[in-house]
């Protein structure tokens, strides 16, 4: 209890918790869950984007997308490393994902059906992620904060590229504009869901806030995201698919419609359009690669033994 008090004091004083510091088990567990989920999201998020790599309509865009996917791999590795400082191995975290025990952001259970989706994922999905991550970068756990700071920079870059892709469509033909609008129609609500349940329905949030794992509530972050995004949508000349969306002079924020939490629960539960596909692809890559990883291990062991002689 004394340790716990000291821990909380550090948190309250905005002193970063470092791996060697004492921390409550629940704090550690919450962080591992959240960080591994975050890392998994980077990895699974490659799937919808990878779906358009071979069909990217210009070389410039193809190369941007390749670089983005590469960055995401890097983010995944970086966050796994940060999470490993809490005593759980990357292999354990990945095994939990393969076994369906760990989660990743539900947004990646929606399909990337058109080229416009690549832009929308950059603009809305990365945009929502950044809103989250900026808050997370001010959290209490040192390694995670530092990862977030670094990642946010690259994500902002991706977000701008996504927006710029959509801008090209918005200046294009009627078909391109329709493709853009359709994509935003499909991704708008799922993006808002990325911030999680309403505060009233978010039971774990209070503790996370106290520990400064979370610095802002789900609804706060969601509102920030909406406020930042609506003007960008206007600039693109598109309609966001929410008839209740309008500026509230009094609040100084945009009001928005009720989120379909049933759909949210549905997708979380495993019944999104792509949950099974994403899991299957992830597991297949792992299984197809078994012989390769075994070879690398055997080689390393052999040569470590030789070096020791």
């Amino acid at each position: 209890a004394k340790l716990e008090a000291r821990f909380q004091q550090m948190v309250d004083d905005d002193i970063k918790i470092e791996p060697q510091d004492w921390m409550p088990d629940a704090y550690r567990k919450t962080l591992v869950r959240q960080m591994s989920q975050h890392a998994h999201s980077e990895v699974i998020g490659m799937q919808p984007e990878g779906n358009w790599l071979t069909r990217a309509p210009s070389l410039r865009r193809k190369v941007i997308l390749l670089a983005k996917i590469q960055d995401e791999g890097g983010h995944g590795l970086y966050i796994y490393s940060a999470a490993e400082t809490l005593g759980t191995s990357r292999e354990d975290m990945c095994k939990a994902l393969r076994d369906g025990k760990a989660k990743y952001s539900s947004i990646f259970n929606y399909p990337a059906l058109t080229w416009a989706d690549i832009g929308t994922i950059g603009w809305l999905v990365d945009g929502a992620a950044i809103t989250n991550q900026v808050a997370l970068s001010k959290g209490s756990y040192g390694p995670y904060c530092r990862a977030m700071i670094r990642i946010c920079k690259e994500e902002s870059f991706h977000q701008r590229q996504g927006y710029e892709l959509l801008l090209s469509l918005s200046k294009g033909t009627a078909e391109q504009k329709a493709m853009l609008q359709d994509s935003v129609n499909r991704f708008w609500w799922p993006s808002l869901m990325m911030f999680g349940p309403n505060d009233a329905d978010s039971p774990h949030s209070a503790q996370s806030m106290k520990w400064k794992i979370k610095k802002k509530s789900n609804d706060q972050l969601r509102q920030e995201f909406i406020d930042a995004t609506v003007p960008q949508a206007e600039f693109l000349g598109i309609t966001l698919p929410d008839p209740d969306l309008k500026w509230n002079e009094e609040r100084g924020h945009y009001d928005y419609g009720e989120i379909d939490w049933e759909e949210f629960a549905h997708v979380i539960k495993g019944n999104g359009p792509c949950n099974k596909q994403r899991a299957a692809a992830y597991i297949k890559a792992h299984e197809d690669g078994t012989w390769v990883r075994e070879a690398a291990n055997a080689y390393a062991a052999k040569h470590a033994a030789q070096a020791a002689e």
Partner: protein
Amino acid sequence: MTELTQQQAISRYAAQIGDNGLIIGHRMSEWCFKAPTIEMEMALMNCALDLIGQARELYTYAGVAGGEGKKEDDFAYLRDEQDFRNNLLAEVPNGDWGDTIVRLFFMSAFNNLFYKALSQSKDTQLAAIGEKSLKEVIYHLRFSSEWLIRLGDGTEESHARAQKSIDSLWMYVGELFTMSDVEKQLLADGISVDVEALREEWEHTVNRVLRQATLHRPQDDWAMLGGKAEGRHTEHFGYIITDMQYMQRRYPGCEW
């Protein structure tokens, strides 16, 4: 073939080199979310990035030299199958990790020598591209050599698989060292690389790595030709361009 002006020949030559980069880069990009580890995936994405990047520069230059106002995307998206002059090695399917590594190794061992020579081209633009690409290609060669050694000298299974990959891809090696018409035409002026002359050193590199990987070099049997000299591809190529070009063919003339 009727004799081309030097500029036309340079345009074709640059495009031909670019085709190799684009097509093998395309194949690598197909590995997205399918590689055995994230690190390996990132390495392949990185190679794809380099190779497609090289293609972009070469196509751009091909457009300038050709004098018809063609842009990089015209080369990638608006030519037909027989206009692509990549080596067939670049287009064969990825297969397993072993096939992918062996292909990249063969190609990178070649590119390493090729770009070194190209950086001496009398055409300063090609020389500059050669110099820049060389740095990237050295990394590809190291990456693929290291993996080939791991696979060859890893487990029994990986050894057998790697050997099988080498055996099955060997028939595409010979084409790397054949001279296309434009290459011949530009050779006298010191613009193009004499690829025939690269074989000996290529063998040297390959033999050294294979030895370290405890793998054996296949007998030279025959070489499958066609892509580079005539744009006569394998049946696999058609599927590459249906994917790659679909958007441009569906929405002609759009900016993306």
